[in-house]
């Protein structure tokens, strides 16, 4: 892992922990982000942790860009000693795979896709070596995911699969981005799954849809009354497959304010995870199911 520092114009410094994705790079990025936050540097206006990088926005009238850069480099060594462990939560996200809405949308944009004759799921299953779409869907929801970034648009989580690298699903993005994606689509691009928080443009392959809102600027959804964005980096997600009936039931429950996402507090320890991935995942899922 080689850290790379660079300016993004006169108001940003972008720091890439590594050019490839790994949880090690994520934990290092989040550790430095926290160190920057704790250092309370005058002139820092935003700190953005991402998958394997982070960015600081600052006011160059308050701190000179070179001085800002030097401060960040100082903080890197402190962050190197941070333990890759966090108190977090595991959340169950219901997913209606092969739903009619993403299907209708993907059919409309077939000419922008690598394989216009197949659906996004059929294509993703084939290039990842699965015999059937069902086996592929199973692989998508059987093990938990780690929220390694929140962003793109309001509250959209990027999810990293908690399995051995050779088992991780990888798919390209659409050849040309779509101009439309249904709200709450569960998508996939590169090694990341995502949930589109709002309707709009998008380039990720579309696998299904969740009935559970994750962004509500009106803050009417019962579990978004405290804050309009549901996810934060470090959250762990377990997808749960549902059918049309359950989808409709959850939509109605969200509407009447009675829906509560399944959730449990957990600790995620990267060393423990690396030593025993399936065992760690089993414990995470036990915590969720025991709640």
């Amino acid at each position, binding site marked *: 892992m080689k850290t790379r520092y*660079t*300016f*993004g*114009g*006169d*108001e*940003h410094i*972008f720091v*890439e922990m*590594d*050019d*490839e*994705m*790994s949880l090690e790079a994520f934990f290092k990025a989040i550790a430095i982000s926290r160190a920057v936050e704790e250092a309370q540097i005058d002139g820092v*206006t*935003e*700190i*953005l*942790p*991402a*998958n*394997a*990088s*982070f*960015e600081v*926005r600052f006011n*160059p*009238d308050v701190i000179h*860009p*070179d001085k800002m850069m030097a401060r960040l480099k100082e903080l890197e060594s402190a962050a190197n000693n941070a333990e890759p462990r966090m108190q977090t939560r595991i959340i169950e996200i219901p997913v209606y795979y092969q739903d009619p809405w993403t299907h209708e949308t993907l059919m409309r944009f077939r000419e922008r896709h690598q394989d216009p004759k197949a659906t996004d799921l059929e294509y993703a299953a084939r290039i990842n070596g699965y015999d059937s779409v069902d086996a592929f869907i199973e692989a998508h929801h059987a093990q938990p995911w780690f929220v390694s*970034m*929140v*962003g*793109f*648009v*309001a*509250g*959209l989580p*990027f999810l990293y699969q908690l399995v051995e*690298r050779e088992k991780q699903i*990888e798919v*390209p*993005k659409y050849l040309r*981005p779509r101009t439309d994606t249904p709200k709450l689509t569960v998508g996939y*691009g*590169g*090694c*990341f799954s995502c949930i589109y*928080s*709002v309707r*709009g443009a998008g380039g990720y392959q579309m696998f299904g849809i969740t009935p559970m809102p994750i*962004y509500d*600027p*009106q803050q009417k959804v019962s579990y978004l009354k405290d804050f*309009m*964005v549901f996810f*934060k980096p470090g959250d762990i997600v377990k997808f749960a497959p549902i059918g049309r009936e359950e989808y409709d039931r959850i939509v109605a429950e969200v509407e009447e304010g009675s829906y509560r996402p399944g959730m449990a507090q957990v600790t995620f320890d990267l060393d423990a995870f690396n030593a025993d991935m399936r065992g760690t995942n089993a414990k995470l899922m036990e915590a969720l199911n025991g709640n």
Partner: protein
Amino acid sequence: MAIKVRKAGLSTTIQDLGRPGYFHLGIPEGGAMDRFSLRVANMLVGNDEGAAGLEAVFMGPELEFNADTWVAVTGATMPILLDGEPRDGWTAFQVKKGQVLSFGFLKSGARIYIAFAGGLDTPKHLGSRSTYVIGALGGIDGRPVAEGDVLPLGKPGMPVERKVDTALLRAPQNPVELRVLPGLYWDRITEASQDRFFAEEWTVAPEADRMGYRFRGGSPMEFVPRDQPFGAGSDPSNIVDGCYSYGSIQVPGGTEPIVLHRDAVSGGGYFTIGAVISADMDLIGQLQPNTKVRFVKVDMDAALAARKDRQERLQKIRAALAGG
């Protein structure tokens, strides 16, 4: 005191200086695309410079006033009509109860800013009244203003008739020069491509909005060959999704550069070659499709000098208006 929207225009949104602090959750700072013009409009009517006004792109709205007040219009050049009588831009003028403000066809620039004495007093969301349409946040129900909307006004200061000496504004350019600090993933493209990016003329594509401005007309870029890193995706323009900077220039597929603006997406998986400097962000907000643009390479010292220059220009206007 309030204003009734009789016609909304093409996309007229309530904007102030934005909501910093939530970009890490994908909620951009937003606010006026051309902050210089919004600040000056507010100064003219005696408001705080960050008060909320209207930003109208390409086409002005039609507004009816239910009380006497003061108004100033800045930014793009567009005939300003009060009950059909012309009024000057960059000038505070009085409006009487029942009068109607409307606009003619756009002459130059892209966005006008309309400030009202007291400022628009819609509810703040995450500290700002700015409308972020993609996230349905701010403004009126997170959308552009619509016919029939009634826009409440805050308590006015003590406006007087005054105008800005237009010699204090930045002179128009053709082609428009946007200064760029190379960086971020600049080294992903070959030296020949780097040179061409600055040497060639680009034009603003129709896909130009508050999120970003797309440019076309230059040569496709050549990438420095590499094995794509795990998680990035197979296209050479792909990176592991990271955070974006305001003003940063991404080039999906190496073909058409996109400069992210005030309603930027906060991250994504396309490589970026640097960023337009903060002093030139206002300029982008005034670009129409098909405008010719040159990207000009600068270093950090030049970027900071340009930033200072912009601040001094604002300070001169501030001082001139306070004195007059």
